[in-house]
């Protein structure tokens, strides 16, 4: 079946697909080496994590509904926000888009049959499960009360079960390293014939940049978490002020990973958005090179900015200046992307489907999240905002706002490819509106709370912070309901959604050239790429051509 001969107007459910071949049993899934199945398993696991983290978030918001104790005691509350952070960051945010959607889409986009190291890919999934299990063990046996940042010396002296959680995060780090390693090698060695670097889809550019960060930063996090564990378990004194150790050194190590980790979370979001904006405006990306290189720029410069988390830690003013100025540069790269995405709409053919709605939300959150981020990097304002709800709102704008929007956009965008079925458009828009509005109502009050000076991680608070906290909790409820709506219609559509066909969005992205759901080997014959990935002008051919005789040479 030659995909270029399929009439896109007559949706066909591909009968021979990865879901039913080579077998359908549980065993065939658990031992699969197929990147598509691994991607789907990652999606299921991360979605479960998302809802677990969401429950923690709701409990936190309910506790903060009144100034005093509401439904739990301080210790439980401290555990809640720690678990919320750990689950959302390590179990959902970091793996969701790269390991889930990336795993599924990246090799198909490249015209490859699989990722370069399928076994490592499966190992990555099992490491994820193992890390999750170890962390879960820690949560059940008391959980940690350190906050996800594990600052020494609190984390090294707490009586709670912080070590299993640290080890869980450590193992999850290796899962993330393996995924990154796989993607880099795959992108380098397995591109289809004719796919030069300047014809690589922008999704892959961003995922590639993400992978670089995963490879270079995660080991440092692993080491610092290990050091905290050693310190907590044996008292070796590396961060112990009583023995001359410096707790601030931990903060250096931690943020050397964890600031770039923010880009591990947001770059894949940008990856998805680049695809969505081109498809739904039927336009070539305005400034493909700028968008592609700015991904690499973010990955690179993202490493130079970790010190902006330490402006009030006793860090030297010289370092603060260097880190402050370098942090501005990351803002520039993000600004380039925002401008280019907006400019892409110019003279396009814009269709306001659900993924595009999430794109709109994404741009809104990214602009405000990004600008407040740069404002935080102006050093003197950070002194006021550091560790207040302003920071909380800022990073939720980026991580939940931008990344969640992109995750939902990706879900709606690739759901037809993954399952061969469509999601309901009307309910999709209802869900999108609820999520976006609920999100704004949750976090805009938190910006104001931060301005007022309410510190984060407060179990109880003075009464003057009350009204805004109530508003925030109300918003969180709407947000949660919106997510439940999305979950419900997604589950229903798995079985009863209308058949999508190979290319329901009439996209010219390469992944749409293969039938939906894709066959086990992705492509019947190796596609030959003769154009860029986002081209909608007269001269460009409809989804990637499969020339009768594949050229023998691969691009390298």
């Amino acid at each position, binding site marked *: 079946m030659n995909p270029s001969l399929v009439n896109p107007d007559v949706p066909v459910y591909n009968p021979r697909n990865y879901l039913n071949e080579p077998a359908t049993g549980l065993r065939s899934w658990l031992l699969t080496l197929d990147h598509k199945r691994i991607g789907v398993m990652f999606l299921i696991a991360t979605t479960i994590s998302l809802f677990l983290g969401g429950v923690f978030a709701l409990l936190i918001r309910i506790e903060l509904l009144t100034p005093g104790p509401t439904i739990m005691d301080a210790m439980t509350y401290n555990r809640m926000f720690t678990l919320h952070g750990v689950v959302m960051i390590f179990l959902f945010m970091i793996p969701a888009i790269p390991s889930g959607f990336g795993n599924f889409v990246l090799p198909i986009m490249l015209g*490859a*049959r*699989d990722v*370069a*190291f*399928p076994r*490592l890919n499966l190992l990555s999934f099992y490491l994820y499960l193992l890390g999750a299990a170890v962390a879960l063990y820690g949560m059940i046996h008391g959980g940690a009360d350190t906050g996800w940042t594990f600052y020494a010396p609190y984390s090294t002296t707490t009586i709670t079960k912080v070590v299993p959680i640290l080890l869980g995060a450590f193992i999850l780090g290796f899962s993330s*390293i393996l995924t*990154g*390693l*796989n993607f*880099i*090698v*795959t992108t*380098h*060695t*397995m591109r289809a014939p004719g796919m030069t670097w300047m014809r690589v889809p922008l999704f892959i550019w961003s995922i590639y940049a993400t992978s670089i960060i995963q*490879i*270079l*930063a*995660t*080991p*440092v996090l*692993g*080491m*610092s978490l290990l*050091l905290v564990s*050693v*310190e907590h378990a*044996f*008292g*070796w*004194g*590396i961060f*112990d002020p009583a*023995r*001359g*150790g*410096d707790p601030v*050194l931990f903060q*250096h*190590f931690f943020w*050397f990973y964890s600031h770039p980790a923010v880009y591990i979370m947001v770059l894949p979001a940008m990856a998805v958005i680049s695809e969505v904006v081109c498809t739904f405006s039927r336009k070539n990306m305005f400034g493909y090179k700028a968008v592609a290189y700015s991904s690499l720029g973010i990955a690179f410069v993202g490493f130079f900015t970790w010190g902006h988390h330490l402006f009030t830690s006793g860090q030297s003013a010289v370092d603060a200046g260097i880190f402050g100025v370098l942090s501005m540069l990351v803002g520039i790269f993000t600004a380039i992307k925002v401008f280019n995405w907006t400019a892409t709409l110019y003279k396009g053919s814009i269709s306001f489907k659900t993924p595009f709605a999430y794109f709109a939300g994404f741009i809104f959150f990214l602009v405000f999240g990004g600008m407040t981020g740069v404002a935080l990097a102006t050093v003197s304002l950070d002194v006021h905002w550091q560790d207040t709800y302003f920071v909380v709102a800022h990073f939720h704008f980026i991580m939940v706002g931008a990344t969640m929007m992109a995750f939902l956009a990706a879900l709606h965008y690739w759901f037809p490819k993954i399952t061969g079925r469509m999601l309901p458009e009307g309910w999709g828009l209802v869900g999108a509106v609820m999520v976006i509005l609920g999100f704004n109502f949750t976090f805009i009050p938190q910006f104001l709370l931060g301005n007022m000076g309410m510190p984060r991680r407060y179990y109880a608070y003075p009464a003057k912070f009350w009204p805004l906290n109530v508003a925030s909790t109300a918003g969180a409820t709407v947000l949660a309901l919106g997510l439940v709506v999305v979950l419900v219609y997604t589950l229903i559509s798995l079985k009863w959604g209308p058949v999508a066909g190979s290319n329901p969005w009439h996209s010219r992205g390469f992944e749409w050239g293969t039938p939906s759901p894709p066959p086990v080997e992705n492509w019947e014959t*190796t596609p030959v790429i003769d154009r860029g990935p986002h081209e909608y002008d007269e001269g460009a051919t409809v989804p990637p051509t499969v020339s009768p005789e594949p050229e023998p040479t*691969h691009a*390298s």
Partner: protein
Amino acid sequence: MPAETTYLAHHFASLEKQTYAARLGMWLFLATEVLLFTALFAGYGVYRFLFREAFAESSRHLQTWIGLVNTLILVTSSFTVAMGVDRAGKGDGKGAWRFFLVSFLFGAAFMVFKAIEYTHHFHVGELPGRFYTNEEVQLVGAPIFMALYFLITGLHGIHVLVGMTVLLVIGLRARAGAYAAEYSVPVELAGLYWHLVDLIWIFVFPLIYLV
């Protein structure tokens, strides 16, 4: 083409691609290893800057000769591994095995010296953090030096053990004729890993024992 059919995984277009992918993957992995150690080296740098005297004094109390001998051992084992990889590249599996066995024994010798050294530390109380009981050096920072010492050499020791296992397994497979002149990438990658272990020690030696 036998090499193509024997060694080529289904999802690669050619053996050359596969080799390239394996090498790139290994280099990326080595990069993560380097950064894993970097956190410890950065900690070493910071505390050395803060506690210059304590570090110099503690370092003087280490047995430099063990460090020196271990450096010579690792450097030489690296050489024999390189020779083994060279043999494998010429299709001589038995030769590769012999060189790898020698390197394995060098690795074992390294660990023996390490054990002697650790025993000594336990006897004189040069132990990390709150276990530090050495009377001779009573400076702020000395326990931190010992903590870093054990972390760096311990982590490196684990890497030596892993490397020895890898050498043994790959060496045995090479002896059994699992690789050929056209395809000896696993041997090469095992060698790369061992060289990295050597490379890290080359930096550990002067930093911990000499300055």
